């Protein structure tokens, strides 16, 4: 009898309960949802809309002019600076993501195993990522100053920032320096989450250090790696402050990148239409990369 009653009332109560939980979830999400809407979704939507307009100094008096896809066509067929920025961003991403991860893992393992001065090691590795971008840019500007900068003392003939074939490399070194410590922090916590029994078992089985790393440590760090990859990849596309301070995208746009080009178009050149179009391209690139990474790697990750 009692069982029967439950089975009758069960579904209704279940629905009510579900609704309560859902309501609570929405309620908890709401604050961040509002901020996301105001500061992310709306601007993206508005950028997409504005990218269909000619809106620059020449249209200042008349107001924006609808031109369909013309901004995009110009970008992909004529704009050499866009092409150079696109290429530079790609290079920065391809180089900095793996190096930062490799360095981050190495530093994390070292910082985890070191016996003396553990805190000091971690702090000294981590501190570059605490510095503001602008400060970092100025420090490296000094390091790269020819003749009497830090590197200038080693070889006065080095002009890394004013040579189009070295400027990108110089910026990449700086970016890795800045973010490797940040990456390390995630790997340290990743390492600490790995069950020590696994290592014990490996030792009993007679696995050497290399085998232990590739068979245990690296696979167990996969979730961390996925997260770090997304972070470092977006970092590669967020280069703007350093460019502003160090090169202004020069010499001859050899160090220009998409986000800084957006800034130049939007503010230096008051060309909001074009800037919106580049922004949309940038958003699409980042979305695609993140989706690909997330959906292809997710299946192979072992969540402990």
């Amino acid at each position, binding site marked *: 009898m009692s069982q029967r009653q439950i089975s009758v009332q069960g579904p209704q109560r279940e629905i009510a309960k579900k609704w309560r939980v859902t309501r609570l979830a929405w309620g908890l999400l709401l604050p961040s949802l509002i901020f996301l809407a105001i500061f992310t979704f709306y601007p993206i939507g508005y950028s997409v809309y504005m990218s269909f307009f000619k809106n*620059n*100094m*020449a249209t*200042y*008096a008349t107001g924006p002019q609808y031109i369909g896809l013309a901004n995009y066509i110009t970008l992909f067929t004529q704009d050499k*600076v866009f092409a150079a920025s696109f290429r530079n961003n790609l290079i920065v991403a391809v180089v900095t993501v793996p190096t930062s991860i490799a360095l981050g893992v190495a530093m994390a393992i070292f910082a985890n195993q070191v016996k003396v001065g553990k805190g000091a090691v971690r702090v000294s590795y981590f501190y570059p990522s605490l510095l503001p971008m602008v400060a970092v840019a100025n420090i490296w500007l000094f390091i790269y*100053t*020819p*003749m*009497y900068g830090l590197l200038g003392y080693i*070889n*006065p*003939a080095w*002009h890394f*920032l*004013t*040579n*189009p074939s070295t400027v990108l490399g110089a910026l990449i070194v700086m970016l890795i320096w800045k973010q490797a410590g940040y990456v390390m922090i995630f790997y340290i916590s990743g390492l600490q989450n790995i069950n020590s029994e696994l290592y014990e078992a490996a030792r009993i089985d007679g696995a050497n250090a290399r085998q232990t790393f590739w068979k245990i440590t690296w696979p167990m760090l996969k979730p961390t790696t996925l997260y770090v990859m997304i972070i470092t990849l977006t970092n590669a596309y967020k280069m703007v402050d350093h460019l502003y301070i160090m*090169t*202004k*995208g*020069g*010499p*001859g*746009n*050899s160090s220009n990148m998409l986000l800084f080009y957006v800034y*130049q178009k939007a*503010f*230096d*050149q*008051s*060309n909001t239409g074009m800037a919106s179009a580049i922004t949309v391209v940038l958003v699409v690139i980042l979305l695609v990369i993140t989706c690909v990474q997330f959906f292809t790697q997710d299946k192979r990750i072992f969540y402990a």
Partner: protein
Amino acid sequence: MKKMLAILLTLLFVLGMVPAMAEDVIELDMYFPVSVGGGPDALITALCEEFHAENPGIKVNPVYAGSYADTRTKVIAAIQAGNTPAIALMFSIDLYQLFSMGVLYNYNDLCTTEEDLAWLNGFYPGFMENSRLPQPDGSFLTYGIPWQRSTIIMYYNKDAFAEVGLDPNAPPTTWQELEDYAVKLTKKDAAGNVERYGIQIPSDKAGYAYWMLQTFTLTQDGQNLMSSDGTEVFFNHEKTIKGIEFWKHLTDIGAQAPGTPKWSTTVSDFLEGKVAMMYHTTGNLTNVRKNATFEFGTSRLAAGTSYGSPTGGGNFYLFKGVPEEQTQAAFQFIKWMTGNPERVAQWSIDTGYVATRPEAYETQRMIEYTESFPSALTARDQLEYAYAEFSVYDQGNVQDILDTAIEEVMTGQKGAADALNAAQAQADAILMDYR
């Protein structure tokens, strides 16, 4: 209850008073740029305070806005966002762009008295080139009032001259001499590393690459980079190509640092003894005088086929779209800053910028100063051969095109004719809309 009410009423009364009191003082935010060393920002702030002390009804708050380009970016963004400032100290060459936006007051309309007109007509004509626009009837309307104005001069290290056997009192006067001296002054150590370059003429986009290019065109019979109405550019003119090729040649023969030496570090390079001669604004003269640990001299720019230099620097602008009383207050401030010969002279002494009014050079303090430091007259004397700084419609865009081309040439990415032809085509496409 009554007590509560009394407190409430008092509170309301006091709160009501605050805006009423603030209205008595007209407050103006003034964006201003700094592109030289030696701290002119502190001087500007001090001048604004002095003005407020003399005119308690007006308070000008100086807002440091970065380089000239940064200041343009900020002011235009403010105007587009509907926060038009009443006044700004900006690049003289922003004139066409601001004019095309229809936001500028012309000073001729504001000058109503004899005294005002005498003030308006009392500046060096050389500095008015980037400050006024020609009218159909042949007259001019003034939109910018000269303040921190300059020409480019050559600074040279006299000790280095003596060291290599050159006469410290005979700086180069022609391109050929410039080249020969620069080669002579370049010093290498035993391993072949350069310890000192002969010359540095900064060519980076973050600085004023297009301005430095003008030093090579204007010294060829005054050939400029643009038409006087700001709608045409001469990027691929044969003299422009010849000029940039000579500039690059100085690098190719090893007398100038490779790539694009930076505007921002050129003065410290000179002060550190890492370059023996540099082209820079006279606005850095006081900075160099205070910090040089060696004897230095200044001279006008070496001539190709003639002497020449662009003027440079910042003007005061007044913007439409603000309450009338703010405009009048700002106008009063500008007259106070630029009208008094003693103040103009002192500003020139403190910075190295050229005093914008001839009468400033007749003041006692200026006479004494220039007697003890004749270099202070180099830039002014060069005004005789000075031409307008590069200034066109849609300045931000067109300037970027030219600066990029210069960087491409100086770093060897492209040949001079290639880069400048491409730049000409791009600039033409933009300026078409304004012809």
